[in-house]
């Protein structure tokens, strides 16, 4: 029995909308309109994924028509992809079309990450959108990656990276 975990994100920053000026008093903020963010330009697609331990279903909805579209996936943090990285190469999609892909997964220990990259030529040129999805649950004690901890410098906790200096 599959117990899918819904993993959903939008390639176009879809964190809601904001209609008040940041930093100013907003007497009637609402969840629907108060948490908007201003993100970087990306391809006009929405990317979602449902994942089990063995496979993921990736859905890409094209908000704008795209041509010469490549859809590729990448496994990181121990996640392997037996089916390879390319889900689509050089394809065209019409406005509003949703492409669905099944992606076999071979998780490593702990929690991995499935990265989905959609690149193509859209009405405004070549664009890419990237979204990533967590696969599996963190192993006991599995830390965040690349976390060397902090060191006190003066009275301040600092994320300190050692480097070599040249002295003469």
């Amino acid at each position, binding site marked *: 029995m599959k117990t899918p975990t819904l993993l959903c994100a939008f390639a176009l920053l879809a964190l809601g*909308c904001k*209609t008040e000026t940041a930093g100013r008093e907003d007497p009637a903020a609402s969840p629907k309109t108060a948490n908007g963010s*201003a993100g970087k330009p990306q391809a006009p697609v929405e990317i979602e994924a449902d994942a089990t331990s063995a496979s993921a279903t990736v859905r890409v909805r094209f908000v704008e028509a795209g041509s010469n579209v490549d859809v590729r996936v990448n496994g*990181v943090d121990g996640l392997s992809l037996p089916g390879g990285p390319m889900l689509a190469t050089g394809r065209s999609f019409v406005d509003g079309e949703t492409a669905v892909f099944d992606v076999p997964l071979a998780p490593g220990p702990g929690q991995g990450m499935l990265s989905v990259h959609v*690149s193509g030529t859209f009405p*405004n040129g070549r664009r890419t959108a*990237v979204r990533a999805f967590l696969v599996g649950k963190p192993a006991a004690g599995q830390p965040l990656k690349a976390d060397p901890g902090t060191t006190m410098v003066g*009275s301040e906790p600092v994320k300190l990276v050692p480097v070599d*200096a040249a002295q003469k």
Partner: protein
Amino acid sequence: MLFPHSGLSRLGLCAALAVSACSSNSGPPPSNQPPNGTITAPAADTTVAPGGAVTFQGSCTDPDGDAVTHLWDFGGGAPNSTAQNPGAVTFASAGAFTVTYTCTDSHGLADPTPDTRRVFVETTGTFTLGGTLTFDKVRSTASGLDYSSITQRPLRGIQMAVVRAADTTSVLASGVTLADGSYSLSWTGSSAVKVVVFARTSTPKITVQDNTSNGAVWAVASQTLDATAGSTVSLNVPSGWNGPSYASRASGPFAVLDAATEAVLGFQAVRPAVVFPDLEINWSPNNAPVGPQNGETPEQAYAAGHISTSHWNGTALYILGKENVDTDEFDDHVIVHEWGHYFESKLGRADNTGGPHGPGQYKDPRLAFSEGWGNALSAIIWAPNTVYTDTSGPSQGQGFGFDLEDNAAIDSHPGWYSEASVQSILYDLFDDSGATEPFDGVALGLGPIYDVQVGPQKTTPALTTLFSFIAALKAANPGEAAAIDVLTEYRGVVVNSITDAYGSSETNGSGNNGGSTDNLPVYRLISVNTPLVAPLVGGDSNNLSQNRFFGFVGDGGSYKVQLQTPTSDDVDVAVYQTGVVVARANGPTGNETSNTFTTQNNAVYIIVVTGFGAAGAYQTTVTLLPGP
């Protein structure tokens, strides 16, 4: 093959033994392997006072199982020792001593890579260190990061410190680097020190911190230095790229900081008096384009690195750093784009709706202006590099780019609702294109653009759009007004010269209506108790066709706004006075009434109706009612 130091060849040895033991079926003769020694104590370089002792312990393994001997060379700080564990060793004199532990097997083969520690016998005195601080910057291209093109840029205006090596909480001296990355710090105290360089500037205060580590500021620290050994210490923060992957991400936060610094310097070059509020930039190798997980609060999502994308959230910047997925620390234009949102938020004003957007889409003109501003600013700051690039993917080997000078290619639907149109106009207002762009006869530079952004664009009673910006820019630069009109009318972004902040000159029959007569006029005048129909079209709630603007002038009375929607579509309303929400209704239906608000006499109020319908045409009726 020889047995090292034995004087016997393997073949010679075989000849003296039973033939069967050296038959060809037994494989190649084994060779003697060197031992491997490790200093198990101390675990790292150590600092002591003169006469202080350091406890040394060693461990040596030999793959052949040979007996081993030990040699500790204390670099002249103490007599050599042949014990495996010399125990407490006293260093009598000040200085820096390299301790080397070498073990040797019974054949005389020594560990080829003996382990070392440095012992700093600190003395006190007055010392000065100076030098230059730089960082590795990897070139961003439209096809990925180019690790073959790494340049060392100066760390400008960076906070730094000299700390006691034995105790980094002991700050001996602190200062700020100059524009060329140089520094000079003097102190009286220990001679055994480390140089710490923070990813933080002083003026303005920009801090690059790790949101996945409780907001700790990023920094690098040198190895322990003996200040008596030389007064010049220079340091380059490496990219950490070793070919297939990153060994460290040391220069990442400094690259982010450098891009933000470049933006600050760009404005200060034309308006030296500008004061920038403090800025926190959150960058981490854990920051991935992962959305908030079920049950995660926004704070928890940020702490886990689930930042969705690089963005400004109204308070701070969040920048992607997930290797092999999406990293932005070297994507200069991305950083400045997001910095542009900080600028709007803290120094100017952005009525940006947020939400999905892309160049050429028919978007709410508030969003189109804000996002176009971010893109244009990235090219302005990095000019003459006008190509916006964004890299991602395995080994950061993918990407895309667009040239802000290429007006036509990136703007399939030119209009006042297109961020591509906005960015092209803003960049052309800035640059001096000479004769290459006959439609661009204006070259204002950044100063006048800044003046409008922090002045009339901030205080406009209208919403912040291309109309409000251009109207103010023309008013402030009347000698350039005709050229500005030519620029804004190029490719029909607007059909008629912009005459006011409300886009009143764009009318149906004579204007760019974005493909629908419902989109003009941009603002409609609304009167009390006079219902107006707002036609809407389903889709993203920040689409042009999902937002309708109405305006009225206050008379000191109290009012509320009623929505009546015959379909089941959700519709919200907000009332603004100079960009500030004074009333709204944002329930789950399209039939609701805002809270009552009291108007100021002669103040302009803008009613924004926003639809959330999924698809198809629908409408709502808007009525301004007297309150309460």
